[in-house]
């Protein structure tokens, strides 16, 4: 038997508590959108300012790894959605399995991303530390790579938090903490995970596909 739902003292019942948590999460996600939004505006302005540099720089990113990584992350969203579904249906083993798959895909994403960073390092594309690109738009290329490392880095930090949360939730699932009546932590983790995915969905064309022709 799953444990009884614990209702905090400020709430009337479990339903009110669940709805409050859902809304809280969505409001938090709106905040996240605006947080990354500031970065997108910086990107847009800088790109309009020096479009040629962004085209040049984007060609220097590794589109193969970037595209594979996008596929990995999209797949992790699928497993996350399935994990939430399994939890709601009370399928504990399936739920744990999908959560672990999600975390594994997240780690795979980070691994590929790390490989990319290493390549960028060898190609001397890391601003400040070893940037040595020469060419007609070197300054703008450096700015692009600054934004590239900043946005992907910030995204990676979000993903690491996501992986840690998924691990915690998976442990909770293993300890039979969830039931068809109580699955809020899984659901909220899922929402967060998908939003991190959505951020990447926009980053991918803006960083890798600026001018491939």
């Amino acid at each position: 038997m799953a444990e009884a739902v614990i209702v905090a003292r400020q709430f009337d019942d479990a339903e009110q508590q669940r709805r409050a948590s859902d809304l809280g999460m969505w409001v938090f996600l709106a905040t996240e959108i605006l947080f990354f939004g500031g970065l997108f505006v910086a990107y847009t302005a800088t790109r309009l300012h020096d479009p040629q540099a962004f085209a040049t720089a984007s060609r220097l990113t590794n589109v193969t790894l970037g595209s594979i990584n996008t596929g990995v992350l999209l797949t992790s969203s699928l497993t996350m959605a399935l994990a939430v579904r399994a939890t709601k249906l009370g399928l504990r083993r399936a739920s744990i399995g999908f959560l672990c798959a999600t975390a594994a895909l997240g780690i795979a994403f980070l691994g590929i991303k790390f490989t990319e960073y290493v390549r960028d390092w060898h190609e001397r594309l890391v601003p400040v530390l070893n940037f040595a690109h020469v060419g007609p738009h070197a300054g703008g290329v450096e700015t692009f790579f600054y934004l590239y490392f900043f946005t992907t880095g910030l995204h990676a930090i979000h993903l690491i938090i996501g992986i840690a949360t998924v691990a915690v939730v998976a442990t909770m699932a293993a300890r039979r903490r969830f039931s068809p009546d109580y699955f809020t932590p899984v659901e909220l983790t899922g929402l967060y995970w998908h939003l991190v995915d959505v951020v990447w969905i926009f980053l991918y064309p803006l960083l890798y596909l600026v001018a491939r022709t």
Partner: protein
Amino acid sequence: MWSFPLHPPADSSLATRVDHLFYAWLALAGIVTFAIFFLIVYFSAKYRHDSRANRAMPSGATLRRESHRIEIAWIVTPLVLFLGMGFWAAGLYYAHAAPPADATEVYVVGKQWMWKIEHQSGQREIDELHVPAGRPIKLVMTSQDVIHSFFMPGFRIKQDVLPGRYTVLWFTADHAGEYHLFCTQYCGTDHARMIGRVVVLAPAAFERWLASGNASPSMAEEGKARFRQYGCSGCHGASASVHAPKLEGLFGRRVQLSDGTSVIADERYIHDSVMLPRKDVVAGYEPIMPSFQGQIAEEDLLEIIAYVKSLRDAKPGDIR
């Protein structure tokens, strides 16, 4: 005794028109504010809790209808009035946005914490701007370091002065006189000392003033010297062996770039070509020009730009 002026001395037709706008706002805002203050005081006195005023209100439906009418009235009336004033102000701003074609150009460089000004004739001044009365003056301004702002309260105008960009401010002074010049964008320690004078002279007196300075070469001539000093002529001169774009007749022309786009060769283009030469490469040329970022002062660059401008009607080979 001192006198209390409400506005600084006005010395341009724009200044007078801005003052009119100000007084119109003062009147409108004054009426609205006074009406509200009056009502607050009047109601407060009349409906004190111990007064015997009539407090009976109309019945529900009447009250609702009445208050809807009142509400619509005080939404629509201020909206129309405020927007009207807004369009007036925007119109005045827009009309004054573009300088007239025949304006005399004066170059301004802001740096922590002084204004360096150079006239086309080569006359230089610091923290002072001498201009003739009755002639439109166009200030082409840039900054060597942080953002400054060129504020002349006597003419009711200011404009931020940005690094890496040229901004423009223009005015026509009506009468001879002296006016304040302030930096209004906070720029560091001596921000408050980045002030000076605008001296408006009668045209004849202005000519005398221009002539009185130790006979300096014109800005374009100075620019020519800088052009040599910084080694520009080595590549862009007539006898150069390096394949570099010719600058004769360049200014104001449309230039095709290597990436297929084109730009008008204005001050900003020349500035960027010197500071960020790899940004806009002319079609048919190799990106071999070194950057002069950090090696050339903004005021020297302005002289070089003046020189390139003076070559507007020159023929290839005129640069020696």
